[in-house]
């Protein structure tokens, strides 16, 4: 008997058997459906999280180094040791710009939180950025209207600002933001530009809810003792490590760190953030998939149980088939196909349920169901059927025809 015709026959038998026991098959299916739904949703959430994170990070160019007081990835002990580090100063930034040979551009920035208002309209908790003329290039931003800060804006600390698209739309829904006045806390600022829409960060943080003013103005009127970040855009991605070493040397010299002491600053880069996220995201994914996999496992046990029942009550049928010439393999395949048919059906049903749920989840957290996930879910459901159906099918295949025929 060829494998193909064996398979075809098995599918027919499986259908007949399932149709004869609709309720039972349906209830058994439920376990797998729940398992597939939870695994799929988990996968969806994880890929959505990854995609959102990558998209958010795309704004920060990969070729940028961030000189800051603290490393982005500090453990608790490290944090305690580095807590008393000296601030990065504006002067540091200027010296780095002068000395760094591998840098394409150097910008300085600092950030805080403030309230922006126009007339009676108010926006609290706005992300306030102190930037300089190079920040547009270094931060990889683009403007939808107006202009960016100029060197003279920064040097003279002019009361001007660039608005994020969210703020611009909020205060000036009919346009005309450029040239208007806004108030940041008590400070009057003239809008000189509006940024293009960037979307939300993966945490839900709104990147467009920001206001940018000259760093000099920022330190004078907004934050007296700010923490600066020196952003260095490197000429060439392949020179990242060299540039990092050069900057380290420059900073140590500028801050007079003795040779036997460790750096009292950190040079961060996006790579590290991505690696960190991948490690964290990886463990979140592992835990999540493990937990949702448990429900699939429980579903699998249900399938195994029902297949044992199915084999037991069809002992006579197995006997007849064996008497007529069915080999062990034939019987084995028959029951495996039956189990796999149940779980495949459950998998399809699970996907049909998970898909609209994904759309609901997408409202809160960027989520998407990629095609490969659909494929994986279907393969997993068939595998669950084959694995959990194997023991019952093997028991059926090994039955002695004489005993099996004697069964009622």
């Amino acid at each position, binding site marked *: 008997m060829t494998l193909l015709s064996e398979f075809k026959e098995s599918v027919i038998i499986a259908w007949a058997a399932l149709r004869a026991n609709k309720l039972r098959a349906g209830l058994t299916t439920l376990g797998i459906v729940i398992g597939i739904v939870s695994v799929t949703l988990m996968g969806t959430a994880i890929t959505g999280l990854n995609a959102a994170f990558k998209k958010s990070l795309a704004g920060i160019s990969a070729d940028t180094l961030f000189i800051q007081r603290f490393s982005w990835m500090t453990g608790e002990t490290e944090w305690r040791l580095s807590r008393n580090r000296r601030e990065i100063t504006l002067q540091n930034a200027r010296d780095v710009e002068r000395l760094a040979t591998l840098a394409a551009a150097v910008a300085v920035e600092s950030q805080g939180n403030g309230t922006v208002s126009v007339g009676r309209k108010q926006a609290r908790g706005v992300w306030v950025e102190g930037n300089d003329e190079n920040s547009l290039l270094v931060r990889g931003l683009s403007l939808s209207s107006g202009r960016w800060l100029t060197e003279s804006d920064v040097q003279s600390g002019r009361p001007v600002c660039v608005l994020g698209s969210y703020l611009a739309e909020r205060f000036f829904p009919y346009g005309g933001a450029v040239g208007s006045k806004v108030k940041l806390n008590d400070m009057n600022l003239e809008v000189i530009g509006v940024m293009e829409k960037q979307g939300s960060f993966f945490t839900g943080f709104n990147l467009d809810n920001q206001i940018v003013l000259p760093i000099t103005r920022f330190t004078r009127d907004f934050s007296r003792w700010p923490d600066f970040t020196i952003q260095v855009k490197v000429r060439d991605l392949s020179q990242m490590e060299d540039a990092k070493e050069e900057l380290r040397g420059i900073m140590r010299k500028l801050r007079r760190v003795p040779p036997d002491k460790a750096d009292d600053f950190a040079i961060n880069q996006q790579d590290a953030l991505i690696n960190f996220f991948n490690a964290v995201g990886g463990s979140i994914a592992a835990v999540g998939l493990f937990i949702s996999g448990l429900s699939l496992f429980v579903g699998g046990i249900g399938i195994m149980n029902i297949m044992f029942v199915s084999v037991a009550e069809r002992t*006579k049928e197995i006997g007849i088939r064996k008497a007529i010439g069915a080999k062990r393999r034939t019987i084995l395949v028959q029951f495996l196909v039956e189990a796999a048919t149940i779980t495949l059906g459950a998998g399809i049903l699970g996907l049909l349920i998970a898909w609209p749920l994904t759309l609901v989840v997408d409202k809160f957290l960027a989520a998407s169901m990629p095609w490969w996930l659909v494929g994986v879910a279907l393969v997993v459901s068939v595998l669950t059927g084959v694995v959990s159906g194997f023991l019952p099918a093997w028991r059926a295949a090994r039955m002695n025809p004489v005993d099996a025929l004697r069964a009622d």
Partner: protein
Amino acid sequence: MSLIQIHDLTRRYVMGTETVHALRGVSLSIERGEYIAIMGPSGSGKSTLMNLLGCLDSPSSGYYELNGVNVAHMDDNELAEIRNREIGFVFQSFNLLPRSDSLHNVELPLIYAGMPSEERREKAIQTLTHVGLAERMHHKPNELSGGQRQRVAVARALVNNPSIVLADEPTGNLDSRTGEEILGLFETLSRKGNTIIVVTHEEDVAQHARRIIRIRDGLIAADEVNPHPRAAMKFAQEQSALTLNG
């Protein structure tokens, strides 16, 4: 050369601490085209002998050659192949697949033999027509009478052109009239050259065969030619002759 050659066949079962000797050494040979009845009271070992003859079971010791092949020491899968090729079973309780129609039931041995689907469909239709069930091709077993079910079973037994038709109490679940019909069918098949072995405890049924083997306590008690095999009732014979020719 004989179709079946058995020498000193034994079969023991271990039940708990006790060993049951179901067959204690049976030797016999059966020629192609014979019509044989194996008789014996329950517990005599006739079912065990039938299981061994039908390759459903393997002997504890002894020699069994079927159609020139020693089958005594074959494994499960090899025996399945032999059953598929060489033996057609007819059971007391019909043993049809309840959820499949007559056609599919008759096709089943051909599916396991790996015959292409068009060819096997044609063959199954042909065989069902021969046993007079052309009209009942797409009926499921529970839509058929007992006699019709047994005819489907006979068609299933015949469809693979086996060396032996092995019938275990084929009339046991039928009323005497339909029983006669089935026996008439066997007679006609026998006359056409099929080898038929009927296992029964009914003297009436056994008397239709041309040779009767009596088993008692796991041994052959008698093996004799039936000088005057009883013909199936006239009407039954006519009917089966009609269907087999039509």
